[in-house]
Every structure is written in C-alpha cells, then in structure tokens.
C-alpha cells in the first residue's frame, strides 16, 4: 500500500538555525503516527513545512504519491488534509455551531452557491452531530471564546474533522486538557480512525496519550530523526531515554 503522506529530507533553516535537518518519514492509510521530542526539536516547524505554512528550505512532501511541497494550506485542506494547532485556534466571536459550519462550508458547493445559497451552507445538522460526537452538545449556541480551555481544545479538534479529512495532523492535542477530557478526546480519535479509516500524525508530549493512541512513533531531536518504531520499541530505545524520556 502506498503511503498517504511521504516526507523526504525536509530541511528548514531560520537564518543560521537549522530547525529541521533532513527529516524523512511516511504514513500509511489508517495509521496513527506519533511524533515526540524535546521542546525546540523542530516538531511544529516540521508540521508547518508539511502543511504549507512554511516553505521548506529543502525536501519534498507527497500526498498519495503526488508532490504538494509548498502548496497553500487552503488547497491542501481541500485535498483532505486537516490540522489542529498547538495554541488554541477557534473563532471566539462565533458560536460553537458557527465554528463548525465555518470549518465545513468551503467544502460545499462553489463560491457562487455559497453566496446565493443557505446561510448555513446546509451544514447545521452535520455540525450538530459533530458537536454531539465531541460531547459539546450543551454548548451549541455558546460563543467559542467563552468555553473552558479543554472545551475549546475539543472544539478545535471537532473543526479539524468537520470536512471529513483523510489525513489529520494534530499538534499537541492533549496540552492543557484535564484527564476526563483527555479520555474523551482519545476515545473520539480512535473512533474516527476506526470508522472512517482516517490517518493521523500526532505531535504530543503526553507520553501516556501517545503510547496508548499511536501505532508508530517517530522521535525527533535537534531537528533530526533520532528513532522510529512501535511505542514499545521507542520506550525501550536507550538513545530516546537519554535524549527525551529520561529514566
């Protein structure tokens, strides 16, 4: 089976600082790949290079075998690639439902039909189902800016799934989320992976979350791949223990 995502020899330098230094990996359909590593090892920069938010200095990104290096984030999203951000990125002025409708509206119809058609782009029912799925049903009409941090994290994740993406890159989805909500989030991600066969790449510092969710783990250190393998293999890797996990 050809990989959904293929990242080859990605470099990204900011002046003299090499944030990402020759990273290569691939992700197969339905796989959940975790990326771990100490702060400043280049994880988020790598995500931004894959998702077109930054142009890599060198290297290529392929989606289903087709090169998409430097493609605009909006075009990538329409190809079925979605993401969440390390910091909260909901639209605080809009309600929970409006946030989800916004997350799906550009995937429906054309610019003209979006102008002349229904104001909810026909997405209210789907948005409400997604809200229910992420256990935010009691907050449908609440302004996103008024939700708790954990609820906003769930909303952020729900928005990433609104358009039914094939590949989702999650940047520290568990950061700042309490244990109960973390369990909810993991359960939801597993369900989407199982039912839709969606492929995930997850950056995370919460080792329990990564080790219990991911099927494979990539460890970065100083912009390079330090190790790669199953969660058990990575956990037992001496280099990884020394560089990141500790004793």
């Amino acid at each position, binding site marked *: 089976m050809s990989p959904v995502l293929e990242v080859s020899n990605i470099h990204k330098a900011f002046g003299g600082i090499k944030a990402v230094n020759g990273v290569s990996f691939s992700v197969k359909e339905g796989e959940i790949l975790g990326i771990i590593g100490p702060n400043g090892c280049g994880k988020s920069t790598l995500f931004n290079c894959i*998702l077109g*938010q930054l142009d890599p200095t060198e290297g290529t990104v392929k989606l289903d075998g087709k090169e998409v290096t430097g493609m*605009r*984030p*909006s075009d990538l*999203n*329409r190809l079925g690639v*979605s*993401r969440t*951000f390390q910091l909260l*990125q*909901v*639209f*605080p*002025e*809009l*309600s929970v439902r*409006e946030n989800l*409708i*916004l*997350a*799906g*509206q*550009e*995937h*429906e*119809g054309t*610019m003209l*039909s*979006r*102008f*002349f*058609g*229904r*104001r*909810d*782009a*026909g*997405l209210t*029912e*789907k948005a*409400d*189902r*997604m*809200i*229910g*799925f992420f*256990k935010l*049903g009691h907050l449908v009409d609440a*302004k996103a*800016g008024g939700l708790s941090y954990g609820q906003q994290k769930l909303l952020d994740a729900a*928005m990433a799934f*609104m*358009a*039914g993406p094939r590949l989702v890159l999650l940047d520290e989805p568990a950061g700042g989320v309490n244990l109960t909500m973390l369990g909810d989030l993991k359960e939801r991600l597993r*369900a*989407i992976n199982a*039912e*839709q066969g969606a492929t995930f790449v997850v950056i995370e510092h919460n080792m329990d979350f990564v080790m219990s969710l991911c099927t494979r783990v990539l460890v970065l250190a100083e912009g390079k791949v330090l190790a790669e393998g199953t969660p058990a293999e990575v956990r037992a890797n001496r280099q990884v223990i020394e560089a990141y996990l500790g004793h």
Partner: protein
Amino acid sequence: MTAPATEGSLPQQRGRLARVPSLAAFADGILITLMLGAVILWFAPAGMGRYGTYVLSLWLVTSIAVMGLNLTLGYAGLKSLAQAAFMGLGAYATALLTTKVGLNWYTSFALSGLLTFAVGLVLGFPALRVKAHYLAFVTLAFSTLIWLILRNEQWLTGGVFGLSNIPRPSLFGLKLDGALAFHRFVVIVTLILAVALWWMIRSPWGRAFTALRENPIRAASLGIDTRMYTLLAFAIGSAYAGFAGALYAPLVEFIDPSPFSLSQSFFLLLMVVAGGAGYLLGPFIGALLGVVLPEWLRVVGSLYLIIFATIVMLLLIACPQGVSGLLERGWAKLTGKGKIGKTVAGKSVAPNTGGRS
C-alpha cells in the same frame, strides 16, 4: 431530517448543497430596520427645504462608501485609507462618462462600480503580503496618487476647476432633477446596496470574512481561500465607494478633487469606527455623525469642529465599538440577550465585551 446527534456515532453524511429557503426565513431585525428606514427617509424631507434634503441625500451617499469600508475593515479586518480615493474614481468616472462620452447614468454607474472593483482587486494584492498599518500605508500611497491625478491631469479631470454640469438621471422617463425626486432615488439605490451587503454578510461569505479578520491562518487551514476573500473584500468594498461616487457626482452636479483627498479617507474611517465596525447598521450611524451632526452644530459657529471632535473622542473612550456597540450593550442590559444590528454570517451574536477593533 436526520436523527439528532448521539455521542459516539460519527457524523458521516455530507452537508447538502445550498438551496433557497422560504422568503419569510430571511427576514430579520436588520432587514426590517433597513426597510423601515427607507420608508421614513422617503418622506423625511417634507418641510426640510432644498438644503435639508441635500444633507439627507449626502448622508445616504456617504453611508454607501462607509458600508464598503465597513466590509473591508469591519468584517474582513483589512485596514484601508483609500476609500475616498475610490469614491473619487467613481465620481469622476460617472461625471466623464455622462458629460463627455454621453452615456446614461445607469451605464455610468455600473461602469464606475466595475472600474473601482477592478482597481480595488489590484490594490488588494498588497494586502496578501502586508497587514495592519503596513497595509494602511500602501493604501495611503494609493490615495495620494489618485488625488494627485485628479488635481494635476487637467485635460481629463479639469484639475482644481473640476467638472460641472453633471446631469441627474431619469427613472422610467421621470426627471429626477429636483432635490426631493433625486433624494428618493438615492433612498432606493442605498436600500438596494444595503440589502445586497446584508445578504452577503449573512451568507457563508460573511462568515469567511469574519474568519479572515479573526484568524487568517486558522481560516486557511479550514480550506478558506484567504487570498480570494481578501481580494473580494477589497474589491467589493472599493466598488461600494465607486457606487457612492457615482451617486455623489449627480447629487452635487459639480466635482473637484477636494472631497476625495486623504483627509476624507480618514474621515470615512472615523465613521466606520464611530458607527461600529463590523455592525451592518454602523455605517448609517457613523455617516450620521460625520455628515449630519456637523450640520446641526453649525449653530455654534466656529466652535463646531471642537464640539464635534470632543463628542467623537468621548464616544470612542466610552465605547470603542462605536455607537452600535453602545446600543448593543444597552439592549443586552434591557433584554439580557443583546442582539442589535450585529450580524456575523447571518447569526446575531451576543455582545462582544472584548476589545476587538
């Protein structure tokens, strides 16, 4: 209708493509206010005399230009200091096309809108590269350039002597030369343009403009073509200024470069902010403050500018979200809900107590 959401069941169905609901579903408070306002303004000039009627018409024409800037700045968050320049482009285009080329006003109006749309589209490209005050300076340079052309290219624009004898249109053979007849024509055109903007803001486009203002990086990650919407916000906002200019030229029947200078662009920006940026009815309130209030203050003679400036400063200190924000807060206290004239993509939203521009 599908079953309600159940936790644990994954939503799979694609949203249906847009279809048109019943007319009754469209009516909301803002549309009703616009219709009611048009009816009142139709009859308002009674007993006002020629000058009073002119001031009312000027208020509406200015509101159209402010509506355009409200889209660009208030909804899409793009700072522009060129709205008066676009108004000048529309006014001169209409004046030249009706007086020199001999086209009727309607064709000139459409061409003026098209011209300013196209120029706005071009000016929108820098907005893809620079933001905030950097973008404001780009538009400031454009504004200065247009003003210099209007003043110096005498062979085309008449320079400081301007263009005169600009004809007023007729409607179904009915002459609109009189102040009252032309005022009523302005009411109709303003209503059409306001309803068109209302429609756009409550459509998914409006939601996308809001997303562009609040978080363009996240918006792009959700598939929103931020380049397209940025250019559209600039182009449509500029076209509204062009339409305003196309109405201004026959209203005053003589134009020169002074009403389209940089200071006028600042004044239009002030009207957006004072009326309430991002509120659909804000431009009417802002233009009322900018056009009609100075007229009322003329009784105090040369003090009027000082009083006007003080009123505006106090207003913005008391409520940075302008008069619309103030009204919204008052309404919220009265009803416990707070929904007055603010539409974010078709949904009235609770009052914003934050410090958004």
